[in-house]
């Protein structure tokens, strides 16, 4: 029984999977950018504010799920 496959035959060589840490870091960065954009919005940007708020909640939930396991 071989311990490793014939890696040279694999087409996975471009397969560099996003890790949990990397994904968490990307989410944190996006959360920071979204918070900054929200802070820049004026009072008449309520629609944009709502969209970004929803996105911020979703990003935080996803980051929390990755962080707790």
């Amino acid at each position: 029984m071989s311990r490793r496959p014939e890696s040279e035959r694999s087409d996975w060589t471009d397969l560099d999977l996003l890790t949990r840490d990397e994904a968490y870091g990307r989410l944190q960065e996006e959360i920071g950018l979204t918070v900054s954009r929200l802070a820049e919005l004026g009072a008449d940007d309520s629609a944009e504010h709502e969209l970004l708020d929803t996105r911020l909640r979703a990003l935080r939930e996803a980051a929390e799920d990755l962080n707790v396991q």
Partner: protein
Amino acid sequence: MPLQPWMKLLSTDDHLIEPPRLWTDRLPAKYRDLGPRIVEQARGEGQAPAEVWNYEGRIYPYIGLNAVAGKSPEEFGLEPTRYDEMIPGCYDPKARLRDMDLDGVWGALCFPSFPRFAGTVFLDGQDRRLALLCVQAWNDFVIDEWCATAPGRLIPLVILPLWDVDACAAEIRRTAAKGAKAISFPENPVPLGLPSFHTDHWDPVFTAAEETDMPLCLHFGTSGAAPRTAPEAPFAVTITLFATNSMYAAADLLFSPVLHNHPRLKIGLSEGGIGWIPYLLERADGTWERHRFYQNVNQTVRPSELFHQHFHGCFIDDRFGVEVRHHIGVDKITWECDYPHSDSYWPKSRAYAAEVLADVPDDEVHKIVELNTRRLYNLPA
């Protein structure tokens, strides 16, 4: 902003990681121990064991990746080798949908991982009956479970039992009847020990693809031959040259009888980028003009004409390709995301696509990100 909020991004090249029980849940009892199953393998002191696939007693390390080229064995441990080290969107369709929503992506066509992108791992199978059942199990999982979680958003792509051309054609028809939309096929069968595009061997496959109106998706790397210049060359050389595999596939098919004999065949060049296409077509037409007379190639149809009739490509961040889109044909370009590979821009793929397409008129953007994929893959809006 040319990418409008109402445009739905459809990715023609994403990937999934097979859940651990994909085959054990589907294979007949007598094959469950021989078919692919996850086993643990020691990974070193203080580390949880790796989870690896065992198929007919052969061990295939890393559930989701095999990014070994250019890495020493000591570095392998940096990559996820267990399901609990991966992001759930790799293997759980509900988590995938949440990640797609975060990313502003509506639809995704997902290639396999353990079976390799065109299912070629099953060519290793000693028991051909088992191998066929494994191919069918993957296809059934994708159609009945993965894509059934969100019909219209997760787009079914299937693999084939490549050692038996009649079984391939039968599997195309079987899965088309179940809702499959695309077929993954090797970019070049020859390095896999299979007949080339210059024979009539694959005609039943191409006929079945035409009849079912499913594109053949040739993902780069599926020939099993990555571009390498020297054993000691850094992996950066190979990564830089990945798209040359798509160039090989395009040139190979353009000068083969395949597209002349199968006028309705659609070919997708998956993850190969698009910027190279105008150059290759100019070169192929020039070659055809000067050198067709003494070779066994079609004497009446220019390669560029064939390309525009049959091929489409995709890109993640090919700014030059977007700039020369009219030389490629706007109708021939699709968008891809490549989630969950680190090449993807998740969770800001939509924002990045908007940036890359910022100078493109709205109607062309809509074609590139959504309408072309709907037309080529028969996806109703």
